[in-house]
């Protein structure tokens, strides 16, 4: 019996979670938004999510095969990348573009750096940035949810007939030049809460995303500092603009519920690999993301800024980590 005992340095017990369980939690948290996407965009949602997840998983498997590394698919990170990428592309994106984007996300965004944990940028956002740069037209064509009867003529866009529609943010961009119509604002807010609105596949329904986010926060899977910082700083910037000129700038709550703000704050900016380690760093990071989103949305040429804001702050993360070096509880020795 004694030969069966083992020895190792302490601690001898550990908390029952793993990278796999964390990623699993994120997938569970994305399920409500997935439901919303399927309700609003039907078969397109199925195809896109399936294609993105499939390509991400296949790319990671292939990379490991070529690099002769042990299989790392069981940490489920490729699945998360696939789902988030699918959620952040327009529903009308052709399947081949999704394949290219997913492959780029995993291969260039993650595997060339050495796999999970070594990547500098969030892989899904790398994939999306690549798609935006390569297929600008496809990435800005927004399909109207099938459940929506076009009750908002103001925002019905031109160009692609009845099936496309400008996103609320694109409309808000025009509003800067024209004038904010409060009625439209109210309609938009209602629509964006449940998701009856044009936009990226998984970003439309705020309520579905918030349910998932609540699950992650309650399970302590994500650190709540980052979403708070992102939403807080974005709100402050948006509120200031709105106060200065309510006719040109849409109200802050509409900024928070539209576009990629919620999915960005709760699911993408909280990607552990690309966020700072320390609490102070997280606040700095989150504030930066929120402020950059608003900067791009209000001043920049793009209607939507979540992707670039997160990528820029990802790049700054090592700097933040260095800047926010922790001091030991007992103070710096000999100083």
């Amino acid at each position, binding site marked *: 019996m004694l030969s069966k005992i083992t020895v190792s340095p302490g*601690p*001898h017990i550990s908390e029952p979670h*793993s*990278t796999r369980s964390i990623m699993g939690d994120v997938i569970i948290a994305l399920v409500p938004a997935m439901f919303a996407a399927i309700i609003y965009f039907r078969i397109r949602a199925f195809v896109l999510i399936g294609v993105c997840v499939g390509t991400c998983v296949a790319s990671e498997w292939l990379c490991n095969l070529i690099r002769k590394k042990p299989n790392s698919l069981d940490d489920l990170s490729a699945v998360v990348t696939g789902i988030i990428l699918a959620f952040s592309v327009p529903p009308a994106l052709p399947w081949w573009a999704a394949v290219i984007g997913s492959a780029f996300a995993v291969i260039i965004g993650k595997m060339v750096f050495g796999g999970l944990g070594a990547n500098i940028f969030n892989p899904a956002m790398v994939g999306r940035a690549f798609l935006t740069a390569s297929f600008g037209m496809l990435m800005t064509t927004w399909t109207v949810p099938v459940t929506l009867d076009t009750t908002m003529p103001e925002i019905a866009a031109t160009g692609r007939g009845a099936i496309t529609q400008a996103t609320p943010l694109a409309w808000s961009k025009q509003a800067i030049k024209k004038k904010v119509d409060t009625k439209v604002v109210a309609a938009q807010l209602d629509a964006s809460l449940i998701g009856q609105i044009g936009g990226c596949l998984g970003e439309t329904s705020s309520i579905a995303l918030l349910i998932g986010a609540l699950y992650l926060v309650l399970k302590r899977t994500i*650190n709540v500092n980052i979403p708070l910082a992102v939403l807080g700083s974005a709100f402050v910037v948006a509120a200031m603009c709105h106060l200065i000129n309510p006719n040109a700038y849409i109200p802050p709550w509409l900024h928070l519920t539209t576009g990629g703000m919620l999915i960005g704050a709760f699911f993408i900016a909280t990607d552990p*690999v690309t966020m700072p380690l320390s609490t102070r760093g997280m606040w700095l990071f989150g504030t930066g993301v929120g402020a950059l989103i608003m900067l791009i949305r209000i001043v920049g040429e793009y209607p939507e800024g979540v992707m670039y804001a997160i990528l820029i702050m990802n790049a700054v993360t090592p700097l933040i980590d260095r800047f926010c070096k922790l001091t030991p509880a*007992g*103070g710096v020795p000999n100083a």
Partner: protein
Amino acid sequence: MAKKDNVRAGQVVGDVDAFVSAPVHSPVSGTVKDIALRSHPVLGRTMAVIIDTDPADATEKSPCAGQFGADFDHSAYSVEQICEAVRQAGIVGMGGAGFPTRVKIEPNPRLPKRTLIINGCECEPFITCDYRIMLEWTYQIIAGVKLACKASGCSRVVIGIEDNKPAAIETMCKALEACRGCEHIEVAPVQTKYPQGGERQLINSLLKRTVPTGGIPPMIGICVLNVATCAAIAEAVVTGAPLTHRVVTVTGEAISKPGNYYVPVGMQVADLIDHAGGLTETAAKVILGGPMMGLAIADLSTPITKTSGAVTVLTKEAIYKAKYEKRQTPCIRCGRCLDVCPENLNPTKIAHAVKNNLLDVAADYYMSACIECGCCSYVCPANIELTGYIKTGKLLVARAKQKVPE
């Protein structure tokens, strides 16, 4: 000491003149069988005196808590008397570190002590030995506290007890009310949170003061003693009996009769486990100490030492239920280890620096300030043995400093 010598219970069998040291006494009467290398939980193999128990003199020592009551008067003993009795009895810190108590409580003009903290927090989950003695040896502990307070010259005593032990807090408070001259002693409940029993953490929770990194409590005028140590002080000063027995928690899923046992120091772990009903079939790890900082022992003939508060026997399930296929996955930089570190360090950075043999980087992130509590390894989802790497790093630094013997 030589082979075939007769020893009496309480006789000194080992002593050195070094300042930071304490003598060792035989807990039993018998004859010296051998003086040879034996397993030790920390030192590996060390010289030991092996004593064959004399069957004729089988009187077993029993706890002396009955001798102490609310009427104990510490004024009968002088500071020198107390210090000398503590030194003679070979008392060391019984919480785990084993620092000679005499050195701790002796008045030191350079570092005068003002506050005495009595550590009534269990150092680790699973362990209950301090809790039991607080309930059963209450007056003996209070007597020890008074003596230690007098010897160290402290004006204030705080007994920190975790808030998941309301019975101990109540018993202690009642006993203090019954005692005379206890106005300067207070009981303070603290949050139940590992590693609350660490002296740096306890000082912080009780007094909101921090011990400087790399420093020791006397530097800020504080002396920390474990409740078991206090009981031993009282026993040594009043009855003159040396520290030869201690209370050990035998616990874990793989033990048939878990409980707290009063055992002689030097008893083999295997014998103690047998006494506690033996190991069950599922036993996978025998740990001297608790599950977080305890030392897993390979050789069950390793003896119980003065500092062993517990023997924890874990099953394979208890060890691995958490560990995802036992496999280490890459760090995902989630920052959980930073959140839990009681010393506010960056465990992942230090561990990875050590792994890549960058000891200067590790030192730059204050590796030496780590108290090795194991919280970072406990929470790590990637199953990285952060504490293990940090310990290794400290060993490498220590080794780089010493010269290779030619």
